[in-house]
Structures are given as structure tokens and as C-alpha cells.
């Protein structure tokens, strides 16, 4: 990752901007059921393999700044929410994510199904995901 960032820096003009968009490392995807203005948290998804990659990306960005080839211009985090009509769409949603994909913790999927069975008519499943944008300016 450090090598890729260094390479990208060689293609940038002085003062040019390097932008990284990637999933947030610590804000895990959160599943909830929403109905009638209420939000009932169900669980958060796990992806330990990918979290190692995200930590390595954070460290790589820090390293090229420490090396002096870039200056940190800013960091911005954001959340986005997707709403599913029924639990069966959950599998499709997860398959749209590039591997390694997040997964439910033990008992998480059963909890979703149980809460969905007792949810009122018109309820939806909310998947809240997070991303982080790092901006580095080439020195």
C-alpha cells in the first residue's frame, strides 16, 4: 500500500491532491429495523479479515505523510444508509460487496429474522455503512 501511494505521488503535480475513499475502519455496518419513526438496532456486521486491510491502509497513509512526500489536507467520515424491503434481500446486498464480505455475528441473522417476524407492517431493514475520505496534498 505504501508503494502504491508513493507511485501515485510520482504521477501528481506538486500541490496535487491524493484522495482515498474506503470503508471506515471502526464504524462497522449496522443493521436495524425501522418502522413508524422508530429504529430498532439488530446487530453490527463483522469483517475481521478486511479490518486488517483497512488498518494497513491507515498506516500507509500515515507513513507517506511522515516521510514528507505528502501533507495531510483533511479527513472526513460519512455514513450512508440502504433500506431493504425484506430479510431475503440481505443476502443479495452482501453479495454486492467485494470479498472479503462482512458477515453476521453468531446469532445475528436469527435475531434479525425474529425481530422482522414481530415487526409491524411497513417496516424496513436499514443497513448503515460508513466510509472515510483522506485527502493528502503532494509537497
Amino acid at each position, binding site marked *: *500500500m505504501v*508503494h*502504491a*501511494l508513493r*507511485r*501515485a*505521488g*510520482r*504521477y*501528481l*503535480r506538486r500541490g*496535487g*491532491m*491524493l*484522495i*482515498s*475513499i*474506503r*470503508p471506515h475502519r471502526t464504524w462497522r455496518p449496522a443493521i436495524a429495523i425501522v418502522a413508524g419513526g422508530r429504529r430498532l438496532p439488530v446487530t453490527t456486521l463483522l469483517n475481521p479479515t478486511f479490518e486488517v486491510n483497512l488498518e494497513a*491502509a491507515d498506516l*500507509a*497513509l500515515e507513513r507517506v505523510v511522515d516521510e514528507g512526500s505528502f501533507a495531510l*489536507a*483533511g479527513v*472526513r*467520515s*460519512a*455514513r*450512508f*444508509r*440502504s*433500506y*431493504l*424491503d425484506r430479510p431475503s*434481500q440481505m443476502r*443479495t*446486498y*452482501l453479495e*454486492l*460487496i*467485494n470479498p472479503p464480505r462482512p458477515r453476521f455475528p453468531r446469532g445475528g441473522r436469527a435475531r434479525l429474522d425474529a425481530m422482522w417476524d414481530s415487526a409491524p407492517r411497513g417496516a*424496513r431493514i436499514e443497513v448503515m*455503512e460508513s*466510509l472515510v*475520505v483522506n*485527502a493528502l496534498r503532494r509537497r
Partner: protein
Amino acid sequence: MNVTFNICHCQASYDSAVTSTELSAYPGEGFEPQLVEHFVSLRRKRVLEIGCGDGRLTFQYAPRALSVLAIDPDRPSIDEAIFQQHARGLSNIEFRIGSIERLPRPGAPFDVALFSWSL
């Protein structure tokens, strides 16, 4: 499927809402360019996008950019991106199979290098 967004920066936050009819694990149209342009305007810029995939994000900002070189090692994704590019009539994008490690030195340096979910 409906998609909404909440952007958090330090203690400040604001909401923006985007509606999408397709099932997607990515933010809706315009959201990521909006975040990027918080730091740098892409208008009339020469952009190098690393890990462009099928051009999902590329097509959102390319109309404002001067030129885009978008690379990805996955041939089927690049083929799909080129197909979409022709369908959209965008002539300022060059999609190329490859990685940043093997990219030849360009004639002119880029203004922005964008790692789109690829670092």
C-alpha cells in the same frame, strides 16, 4: 430501495438524502464526488483514478473533469466500463487495464489521484 446519507466531520454533521431504486452496497449517485470536492474541485482537472472497477464512480465526476485516466486490473470490469462510456458518450475518459505499480509515466502530471475503494 431508498438510500440516505449522513456526513460527519469533527463535531459538525449534516444530512443529505439520495434516493436509489437499485440495490447497491455503495453510496448513491453524487455522494462520493461531493465528499471529494470538499477537499478539491474536480472541475477541469486531470484525474488519475486507481481501482475504477466498472466506472461506477468515474461516470459521476468525469463530466466535470478535463480528462480521466481510470485503471483497474480486472479486465471484465474495464470492458463493462468502456461499454458504458460509449453508451454515455463521454470522450474524456481513458479506461485501462492495469495497476498503479505498472503504469507508464504519463506525459503530463495529474492534478488528482483518486483511490476509489482500492487502497
